[in-house]
């Protein structure tokens, strides 16, 4: 405060840092250890109060998907060390096993709650918002204590934390003060008395441990996300996937979905309406498949009830005009390569092969995910309720950019779908970014 100029500079840098942090929030897919590789809670099977608390903590830790970021794929679960790439250098996640020297062995439940609730570590350092404390702040003290009890019960791993490799000035944690002022609102979840217990449970999970808004909220130019834009979707930086809006029926708005389909998508990974791939497949694989049926239903109720904020009207019919030659080429490719799984009329064979007719993820404004799927294919996650998912093959090596554009244009406008044509350039731009 004594040096206004410095404060101003700090604020500007903090904005940049916010962008970096935002990107860091989204690691690439974790070739995760299978669920069985997660260390079992010590004392599992005994039914005393401690056992119950640890088991609840294990469940909540899965809901928070701690393991996905705090595990280096080829190393021990929760021992950290996973690189999270940002344009300003790499962040490395920390060891959260109870090792006294390198982990959280000497932490108390108070320390842990302060970290979850305020984003301030035991030694007073400010955490980068790659750690979703802006969401975890909503977690109750009792749940925080249970997660802490679970982590304390794990086998300590003596693995030193790797220092972050952020370039100056982004390595100055004091600058996080600016980011926090702009984007961090501290406070536990407050139940909405006008809603029932199920809705409130869903809201608590989605807004808190689930940290869904980290991807499903647009990032503004300052690298932060505004509450008013919550759940409105956006591109996931560094991953080239589009996280669709959960409030728009033109995207992944769930307003006209059945609760069963919403729950299945989250917990099973497939449904009669759509299937998860990419970053959402990671979330289902590591986290949501372990959610019990009651919490799944609560999440579905909350998501279905999200207010509709359809910003854009349906594209006018003029925007949906397609050259007959393109339509013909797209249909030819579709019938030859796609119809065997997705049906000649786009009905699919749900839930194993998703429908394309009436599928919001096909018709939404951003064609990014559709282009990715045609180029790279994809497998939904193997889950407890769908352990052997059906996969889609890559077509990047069989179809040229104009053929990909034509077939995606075709599925976006055929069968009364309300999408708009895709250009060869859009396909080419993504092809250059994707793994070959």
């Amino acid at each position, binding site marked *: 405060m004594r040096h206004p100029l410095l404060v101003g500079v700090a604020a500007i840098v903090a904005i940049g840092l916010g962008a970096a942090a935002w990107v860091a929030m989204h690691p690439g*897919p*974790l*070739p*995760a*250890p*299978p*669920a*069985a590789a997660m260390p079992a809670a010590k004392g599992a099977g005994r039914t005393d109060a401690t056992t119950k608390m640890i088991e609840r903590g294990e469940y909540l830790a899965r809901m928070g998907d701690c393991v996905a970021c705090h595990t280096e*794929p*080829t190393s021990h679960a929760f021992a950290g060390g996973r690189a999270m790439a940002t344009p300003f250098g790499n962040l490395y996640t920390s060891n959260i096993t109870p090792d006294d020297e390198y982990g959280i062995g000497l932490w108390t439940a108070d320390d842990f709650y302060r970290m979850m609730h305020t984003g301030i570590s035991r030694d007073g350092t400010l955490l980068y918002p790659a750690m979703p404390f802006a969401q975890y702040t909503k977690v109750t003290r009792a749940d925080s204590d249970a997660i802490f009890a679970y982590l304390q019960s794990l086998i300590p791993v003596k693995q030193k934390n790797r220092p972050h490799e952020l370039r100056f000035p982004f390595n100055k944690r004091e600058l996080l003060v600016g980011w926090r002022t702009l984007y961090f609102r501290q406070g536990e979840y407050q139940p909405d008395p006008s809603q029932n217990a199920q809705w409130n449970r869903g809201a608590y999970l989605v807004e808190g441990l689930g940290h869904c808004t980290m991807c499903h909220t647009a990032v503004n130019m300052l690298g932060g996300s505004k509450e008013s834009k919550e759940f409105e979707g956006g591109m996931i930086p560094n991953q080239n996937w589009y996280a669709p809006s959960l409030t728009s029926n033109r995207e992944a708005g769930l307003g006209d979905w059945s609760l069963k389909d919403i729950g299945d998508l989250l917990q099973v990974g497939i449904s009669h309406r759509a299937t998860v791939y990419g970053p959402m*497949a*990671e979330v*289902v*694989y590591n986290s949501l498949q372990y959610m019990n049926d009651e919490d799944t239903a609560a999440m579905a109720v909350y998501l279905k009830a999200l207010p509709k904020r359809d910003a854009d009207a349906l594209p006018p019919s003029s925007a949906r005009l397609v050259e007959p030659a393109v339509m013909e080429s797209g249909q030819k490719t579709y019938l*030859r*390569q796609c119809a*065997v*799984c997705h049906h000649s009329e786009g009905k699919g*064979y749900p839930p*194993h*092969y998703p429908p394309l007719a009436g599928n919001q993820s096909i018709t939404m404004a951003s064609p990014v995910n559709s282009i990715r799927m045609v180029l*790279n*294919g*994809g*497998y*939904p*996650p*193997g889950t407890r309720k769908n*352990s*052997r*998912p*059906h*996969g*889609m*093959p*890559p*077509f*990047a*090596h*069989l179809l040229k950019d104009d053929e990909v554009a034509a077939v995606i244009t075709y599925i976006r406008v055929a069968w009364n779908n309300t999408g708009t044509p895709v250009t060869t350039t859009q396909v080419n731009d993504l092809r250059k970014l994707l*793994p*070959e």
Partner: protein
Amino acid sequence: MPRRLLACAALALAAGTSIAQDEAIPRFKQVDSMEARVQGCVTCHGHEGQGTRSGYFPRIAGKPAGYLYNQLVAFRDGTRKYAPMNYLVAYLPDDYLKQMAQHYAKLRPAFAPREPSTADAATIDRGKTLVAAGDASKQLPACTSCHGAGLTGMEPGVPGLVGLRPAYIAAQLTRWRVGERRAADPDCMRRIALRLSEGDIAAVAAYMSLQDPPADPSPESTNLVRMPFACGSQR
């Protein structure tokens, strides 16, 4: 059941060979079947795992299930790096990967016609020596001593090499030599790859790709022969 599968495979192949691209187009009979589940593999590895026209995508049919499983796990966990494969299998559990491996291990589709070789006689001759006899001066055992007399591999973890194309063989040996590809310790293949020159790799790839598959392309049983080096994937 395996016999019926084989018959289906043979039929499918007979129908498919006339139009080469068809082998890369998804098709299946029943949604609830392994055949339908592995449609994610067919555009690169062919409908029966026989490979496709692209020289880089390997034949996977008939390789030992243990080998195929080790590769799928390595792709999932990122210890074998090939981005399109790493992406596809990233969230698949062990049991399922094992079933996929067993599925392809059982298939015996016909082999694709050989690619014409551009290698000269001396290269092919050097390749023949390395494959069939090895090179004692470089402490290189014959490829056949582990990969089988007919290069069809050995249960449970040594891959068959017959039917692979030179681009793939050379690329994999090179990756092994520079340390990008590894197997379970003790990594016997790395010991061998480190002793191969670039010329040796080209020679082995050229000669191997000219070999006709034996009448029975199944892998050899384990422990019929003593292996020159201990291999982690055979344990």
